[in-house]
């Protein structure tokens, strides 16, 4: 009897939590619009991919340098590929890499921040110094060196390389959060009541800083995408597929700007802007929840 009751109770708590989260998302216009925008982008890309019959990657599949027309909505590039197909496919690929790198980086940051910040001592000292080192070194430069030697860059490789540096900033900020949380009364109590560290971290600390975590995650994904596009524009991206950054790279290689091929370089820029903007809105909204003082701004 008792087990059934507590089981029901837990379900109820979970349901209320979900409901509350949805309410928060709805109520906060920043989060809502950010998410909406991102979803729209993804939908646009997915739908576009299915509608357009052209291959975004195969060179020479269509005539080169055609201006926009009803057949090729954004025209074609100097390598004989349809630009609209590239845009849609590239958006999805770029997002894939960005989110993959972001998730890996975020998880690394979580572990560094919590195990270092919580346990303190020598481990914390080493981890903090490590974080500082990764934070002060200009990451893209190092990424360039690494990417330049990798023979064939594919999506997982790229995500891994980027995540190797994307974790530093969130690790530092999350550690500060952990340190201040540690001092809070209820954490002290849970330590006294005998819970082990992992349980305390998972059950008590993390749920209390969810808005912060969400905000940091958005920042990590943003930073990862900036690194990604940076590498790609310089030519260090996956060459056997297409991403938004690579589109810009090919555009630059063929002097698209000065050849007045505005349909080549402008759409990827706009798409990237929309992605970054949506992440920015999302992160801003979470900041406001975490820090209600910001509401006045």
């Amino acid at each position, binding site marked *: 009897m008792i087990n059934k009751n507590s089981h029901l109770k837990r379900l109820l708590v979970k349901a209320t939590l979900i409901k509350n989260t949805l309410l928060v998302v709805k109520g906060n216009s920043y989060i809502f619009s950010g998410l909406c925008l991102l979803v729209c982008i993804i939908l646009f890309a997915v739908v576009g991919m299915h509608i357009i019959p052209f291959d975004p990657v195969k060179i020479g599949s269509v005539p080169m340098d055609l201006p926009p027309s009803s057949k090729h909505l954004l025209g074609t590039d100097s390598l004989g590929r349809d630009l609209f197909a590239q845009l849609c496919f590239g958006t999805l690929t770029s997002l894939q890499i960005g989110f993959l790198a972001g998730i890996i980086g975020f998880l690394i940051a979580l572990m560094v921040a919590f195990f270092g910040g919580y346990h303190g001592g020598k481990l914390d000292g080493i981890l903090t*110094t490590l974080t*500082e*080192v990764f*934070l*002060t*070194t*200009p*990451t*893209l*430069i*190092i990424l*360039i*060196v*690494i990417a*330049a*030697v*990798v*023979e064939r860059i594919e999506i997982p490789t790229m995500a891994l390389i980027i995540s190797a540096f994307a974790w530093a900033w969130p690790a530092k900020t999350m550690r500060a959060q952990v340190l201040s949380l540690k001092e809070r009364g209820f954490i002290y109590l849970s330590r006294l009541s005998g819970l082990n560290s992992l349980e305390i971290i998972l059950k008590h600390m993390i749920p209390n800083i969810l808005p912060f975590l969400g905000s940091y995650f958005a920042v990590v994904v943003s930073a990862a995408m*900036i690194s990604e*596009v*940076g590498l790609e*524009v*310089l*030519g*260090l991206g996956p060459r056997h597929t297409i991403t938004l950054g690579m589109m*810009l790279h090919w555009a*630059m290689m063929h002097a698209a*700007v*000065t050849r*007045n091929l*505005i349909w080549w*370089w*402008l759409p990827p*820029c*706009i798409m*990237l*802007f929309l992605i*970054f*903007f949506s992440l*920015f809105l999302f992160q801003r909204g979470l900041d406001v929840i975490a820090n209600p*003082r*910001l509401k*006045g*701004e």
Partner: protein
Amino acid sequence: MGLPYVIRRSIVYFLSLFGGLLINFLAPRLVPGNPLQARLMELQRMGVRAGGQEFVEKYMRIFGLEQPLHIQFINYLSSVLQGNLGVSITRFPTEVREVIALHFPWTLGLLYFSYFACFFIGVLLGALVGWKSSKMRNAVFMLFIVLSQMQYYTVAMSLLYLFAFLFPIFPTGSAYSLGITFESIFHQIADIAWHAALPALSIILTGVGGWTLAARGLMVSIKGEDYLMLAKAKGLSERRRFLYYGLKNTLLPQVTDLAITMGFVATGSILVEVIFRYPGMGYVLYRAITALDYPLIQGIALMYVFGVTTAGFIVDLMYPLIDPRVRHE
């Protein structure tokens, strides 16, 4: 401040440099096979004159690729510390350091000018918007936020398109006009400035957003502080309150961010240089990547790491000197 702080920052600084050197060293070695040999063969097939077998042999000797890894690393370290960064493949037999010396001033001028312009414009704008909002100020504020979300490449390409192509006010690239004799040094300087205008503008327009957002947030929280209220009670003019109580307290804490964000702006400047073919280290790096000129890639990368971390280190050491709160912790 005090000794522990200096020691901390020094450790981080030297570890960063060491890390950079380590990656530089390990990267080509972790790839199976001899990348130099492979690339060289590729280049020779494409008809690029790159020095042939003698070059590879010289390199094998310099790197001592037969020797154990740690010995190789020590050799590498000692040669770097002596200022020897190797020889460029594409510009053989020019040494890497000569190439860098040629192009480094352009990057330095562009980067430092634009970076500090970003900081001051950004913080001032943010402080003004945070102090008193008005339709005009908010609009400008939002504009810069949007521009910063557009990233360096969008802004650079758009500026290139609008003001060098559509309305050819500015040149489409390079740092100075070739083949023209100038009447005086002033004309020469003006020519350089004219060429640097769009690249600098690209960096500034993109970079201001970040600073201005942070500055505004800081100013808004400062406005609620007791000392600002007392400043009003003292009957001080608004201008004085804004400058000495508001702006000064907003400016100082952000100086530390200068060190952190320098890395971002440096990488952004690489993209800008590439788009405008501005002959700084970034553009050379780009060309080196395309040609897979490893020594040059690594040499330039090392320069950037060194430049950014050193500048940051200096800022970190100098900051306690200007902010009394940190100094007397």
